[in-house]
C-alpha cells in the first residue's frame, strides 16, 4: 500500500442536486479527513444515496464543489481515485479474480494481460491469492467484495466509500470487512461508511455526519458518538404531517388477515406471524434488504412463500382479496393511458358490457367518482397521466386500487417522493378506507410516515420481526422513530442470518 494522500482529505462545499421539484441535496457541506472513517447516517430520502452517486460520478450536481486531496473533483479523478464498494459488487462475474483485478488496465499492447508483481502482492495482501483463478461469480459475496477493494487499492484510490457494504454478509465476514476498512483508513486514505446500522457506525466510525433533508445537520464525534445519540439525532427536526385523530379510530379491530409461520421461499423473511384487522393500518417497517418489502409483496401474492395466510378464516385468494400498489409510480401507472383510463384500468365486470365491449359510460362515471373522492387535480380525465404532478399521479395509482374496494390493500411506501399536501391527503384517504372496514398493510422505510398514518408498526430486521409497536402510544414522531431505530439495531446485525446469506448467494 503505497498511497501517499495529501493532508486535505475530501472537502464538499455547497453541494446542490434537484430532481424536478424535489431537492435531494440542499447545499451540503462536509469535510472528511485523511485517515479517518467518516460515518454517514440519515433517514431515507435525506440525500445519502444522491451524495454517493455524485461522488461516484453517476450524477452531476447542480451546484457545489468537491475537492479530493486538494484537487477539484472531475470525472477522471472520480474514476481513478474514488472507489465505491457496494453491497452488490459491480464487477465481471464471468472473469476470474485475477482478470477482474486487471480489467481496465490491460494496456494497449494487445495480447493477454499478465499480473504484475504488484498485483500478486495485492492479491496476497487481501488473502485473495488462493482464489486468483476462480471465476468471480462462483465465489461468495464477501470475496467478490474483497476483489472490488483490491481492485481499488491496486489503482491507488485514496477515497473509499462503503455503501451498505455488509448487509448481506455473515458476522465473520463483516468483522473481516471492518478490519480491512480500518487498515485502509490507517494507511492515510479517506473512508466513508454509509449504513443504516447504527451500532456499526458507533463501533467503527471516527465521526458520524448526520444528513437530514439534503444537508449535513451535525457531525457527531466521541464522546457523543453513541448508538442512542445517532438514533435521536436522526429524527430531530423532522416535521410531522398533521396527524389525524387516531383516538376515535377503531381499536376493537376484528382480525381479518392472519399470517402464521409465513416464510419466504428464499428466506428473505422467516416465520412471520402477524394479524391485520378491519379498520387497521399496519406498517411493516424496515430498511431496504430487511425483507419488509418482500413481506408485503408476499401478502399481495407476488412472492413465493410457505406458511398460512387466512382472510376471515379462509385461505387468502390473492387475486380478489388484495389490491397492491408498488412504490415506484413507473410500476403502478400506465404511461400510454389517460388519467381517467388509469383510474379504471383495474376494474373488471363494472366496465364490461355484452360481448365484452367496454362500458364507456360506467367507466367514465367510475373515473369521475374516483377523481372527486381522491381529490385528483387534473384538467380533464383525458389528460395524459404524465402531465400530472408526482403527488397527483400517486393519488391516481392509489385511487385505482382503493376503488376496487378489496378487503385488504397493500401499499409500498405510499408517499415516496410526494409533496407534503398530497402526503396528508393520501394518509386521509387510507384512513377513510380503513374506517369503511378495509385493512391496510404498508411497507415503510420512513419513520415519519409510520407515525403519521399507521396504527401499529411491525419492525422487521434481517428477515425477522424485531418487535411490534402501538403507534398511538407515542405522542411524537421522534419517540417512535427512536424506538424503531433501537428495535432495528437490537437484532444482531450480522449474526443469525448465516443461512439466509448463503441462500441469497445461491
Amino acid at each position: 500500500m503505497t498511497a501517499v494522500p495529501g493532508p486535505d482529505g475530501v472537502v464538499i462545499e455547497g453541494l446542490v442536486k434537484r430532481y424536478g421539484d424535489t431537492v435531494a441535496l440542499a447545499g451540503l457541506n462536509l469535510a472528511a479527513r485523511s485517515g479517518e472513517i467518516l460515518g454517514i447516517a440519515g433517514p431515507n430520502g435525506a440525500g445519502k444515496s444522491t451524495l454517493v452517486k455524485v461522488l461516484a460520478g453517476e450524477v452531476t450536481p447542480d451546484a457545489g464543489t468537491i475537492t479530493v486531496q486538494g484537487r477539484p473533483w472531475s470525472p477522471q479523478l472520480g474514476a481513478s481515485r474514488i472507489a465505491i464498494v457496494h453491497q452488490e459488487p459491480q464487477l465481471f462475474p464471468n472473469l476470474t479474480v485475477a482478470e477482474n483485478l486487471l480489467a481496465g488496465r490491460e494496456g494497449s499492447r494487445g495480447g493477454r494481460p499478465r499480473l504484475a508483481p504488484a498485483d500478486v502482492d495485492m492479491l496476497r495482501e487481501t488473502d485473495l491469492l488462493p482464489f486468483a483463478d476462480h471465476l468471480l461469480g462462483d465465489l461468495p459475496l464477501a470475496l467478490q467484495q474483497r476483489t472490488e477493494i483490491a481492485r481499488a487499492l491496486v489503482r491507488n484510490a485514496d477515497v473509499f466509500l462503503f455503501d451498505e457494504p455488509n448487509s448481506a454478509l455473515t458476522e465473520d465476514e463483516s468483522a473481516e470487512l471492518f478490519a480491512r476498512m480500518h487498515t485502509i483508513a490507517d494507511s492515510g486514505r479517506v473512508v466513508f461508511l454509509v449504513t443504516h446500522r447504527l451500532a456499526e457506525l458507533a463501533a467503527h466510525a471516527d465521526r458520524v455526519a448526520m444528513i437530514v433533508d439534503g444537508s449535513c445537520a451535525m457531525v457527531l464525534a466521541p464522546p457523543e458518538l453513541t448508538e442512542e445519540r445517532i438514533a435521536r439525532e436522526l429524527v430531530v427536526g423532522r416535521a410531522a404531517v398533521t396527524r389525524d385523530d387516531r383516538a376515535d379510530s377503531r381499536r376493537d379491530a376484528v382480525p381479518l388477515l392472519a399470517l402464521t409461520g409465513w416464510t419466504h421461499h428464499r428466506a428473505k423473511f422467516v416465520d412471520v406471524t402477524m394479524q391485520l384487522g378491519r379498520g387497521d393500518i399496519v406498517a411493516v417497517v424496515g430498511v431496504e434488504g430487511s425483507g419488509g418489502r418482500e413481506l408485503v409483496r408476499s401478502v399481495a401474492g407476488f412472492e413465493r412463500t410457505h406458511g398460512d395466510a387466512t382472510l376471515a378464516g379462509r385461505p387468502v385468494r390473492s387475486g380478489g382479496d388484495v389490491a397492491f400498489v408498488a412504490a415506484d409510480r413507473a410500476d403502478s401507472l400506465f404511461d400510454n393511458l389517460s388519467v381517467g383510463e388509469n383510474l379504471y384500468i383495474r376494474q373488471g365486470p363494472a366496465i364490461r358490457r355484452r360481448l365484452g365491449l367496454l362500458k364507456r359510460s360506467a367507466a367514465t362515471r367510475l373515473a369521475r367518482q374516483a377523481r372527486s373522492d381522491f381529490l385528483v387535480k387534473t384538467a380533464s380525465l383525458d389528460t395524459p397521466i404524465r402531465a400530472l404532478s408526482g403527488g397527483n399521479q400517486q393519488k391516481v395509482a392509489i385511487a385505482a386500487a382503493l376503488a376496487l374496494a378489496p378487503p385488504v390493500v397493500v401499499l409500498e411506501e405510499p408517499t415516496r417522493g410526494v409533496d407534503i399536501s398530497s402526503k396528508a391527503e393520501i394518509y386521509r384517504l387510507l384512513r377513510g378506507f380503513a374506517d369503511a372496514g378495509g385493512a391496510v398493510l404498508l411497507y415503510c422505510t420512513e419513520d415519519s410516515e409510520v407515525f403519521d398514518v399507521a396504527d401499529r408498526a411491525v419492525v422487521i430486521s434481517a428477515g425477522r420481526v424485531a418487535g411490534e409497536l402501538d403507534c398511538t402510544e407515542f405522542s411524537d414522531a421522534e419517540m417512535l422513530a427512536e424506538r424503531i431505530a433501537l428495535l432495528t439495531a437490537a437484532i444482531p446485525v450480522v449474526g443469525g442470518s448465516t443461512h439466509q446469506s448463503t441462500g441469497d448467494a445461491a
Partner: protein
Amino acid sequence: MTTNLVDQPVGHVADPADRERPTVAQFLRAFARVGGLMATVALVMVVFAAASDGLFLYPDNLLGLLRYMSTIAIIGLGLTVVLVVGEIDLSFANLYGLSAMSMAVAWINWGWPLWVAILVALAVAVLVGAFNAFFTSVVGIPSFIATLGSSTLIFGFTLLFSGAQRFAPAAPPPGRTMDAGEVEFFRGLSNQSLPFGVPMQVLWMIVIALLFWLLLSRSLFGFRLKAIGGNPVAARFARLPVRRYKFWAFCIAGLSAAVAALLDFSFIGSIQPDAGQALLFPTFAAVVIGGASLQGGRGSVAGTLLGALLLAVIANGLALLAAGSFAQQMFLGVVTIGAVVLDQLTRNWRRDR
C-alpha cells in the same frame, strides 16, 4: 362497485361544465399520424401518376392495388394486436404458407370436405399462435426469438408434409376429381367482383377491419391489451390477465394470417409453401408505419390500414415503373428501417414533452 369509501370532500361538487372533452391539441396529436399518412399516400400517388403517364390511375391498376393492400391489411391487423400487447410475431409469413397448404392438402389430396379443410387451416393457425404464446409468456423467451424459431420450424414442416409442391384445385392429382360446386364456392370466396369491379377481398378487408376496430378500440380486451403493452409490470401488479391476453393476441395474429392466406389462395387459384414469405417485410413495415409501437401499448386499425395502403401504392407504383425486383427489395429494406426509426423518434418526442 362504488368508491364511496371516503366521505365526499366538502366543496367539490361535480361541475356540469366539467365535461371530458379532448382539447384541440390532443385531437391534433391523435390526428397527426393518420393525417400525415394520408398526405403521404396522396403525395406518393401523385408522383407515381405523373411518372407513369397516368397509367397508375387506371381503374384496373387501382383495383389490383386495393387487393394487394387487403392482404397486407388483414395480416397486419393481426400483427398490430401482437405489437399493442408488447410482443412481436415474425412467424406470420410462414404461417400463411402453412395454413393454406394444410387446407390444400386436406381438401385436394385427401379429399376432405371443403369446410373441414378450412377449419383445419384455422385450427393450425390457432395452434401456431398458442405455440408462440407458450414459449413467449410461459417459458419466457423473447417473442422475437420464439417466433423467428417457430417461423423456420413451420416452414420446414410445410415443405415436409406437402412434398414441397404447388397445389391448385383446378389441377388435382391424377385419379382425383374435385367437387365442382366446392371448387366454384372456394373460388367465389375472393375471386369475384363486386359492383364497379371492386375485388371481393376488399369487402373482406372492410369487415375484418371493423371487427378489429371493435376489438381494439371498443372492447375491454383491447383496452387492457393496450395497458399490458404499455406497462407489463404495472399490469401484473394490477392483476390484469397478462398471459391469457398475450395468448389470445398471438392466436389472433395467426388467424388473420390464415384468413389472408385462404383468400389469396381462392383468388390466385394455387398455393405453394413459400407463398407468404414475400409478405413479411411489407406487412411489418405497414404496421409500424401505421403507428403501432415496437415498445408496445400503441397501435390502431386506421393507422395499419393506411400503412397497408401506402405499402401497396409503393409496391404497385414501382412495379409499374418497371423498377425491377432488386430495387423493390432494396426499397423495402429502407422502408422497414425508416419505419422503425420513425417509431423511435415519435417515442422520444412523446417522452420529452
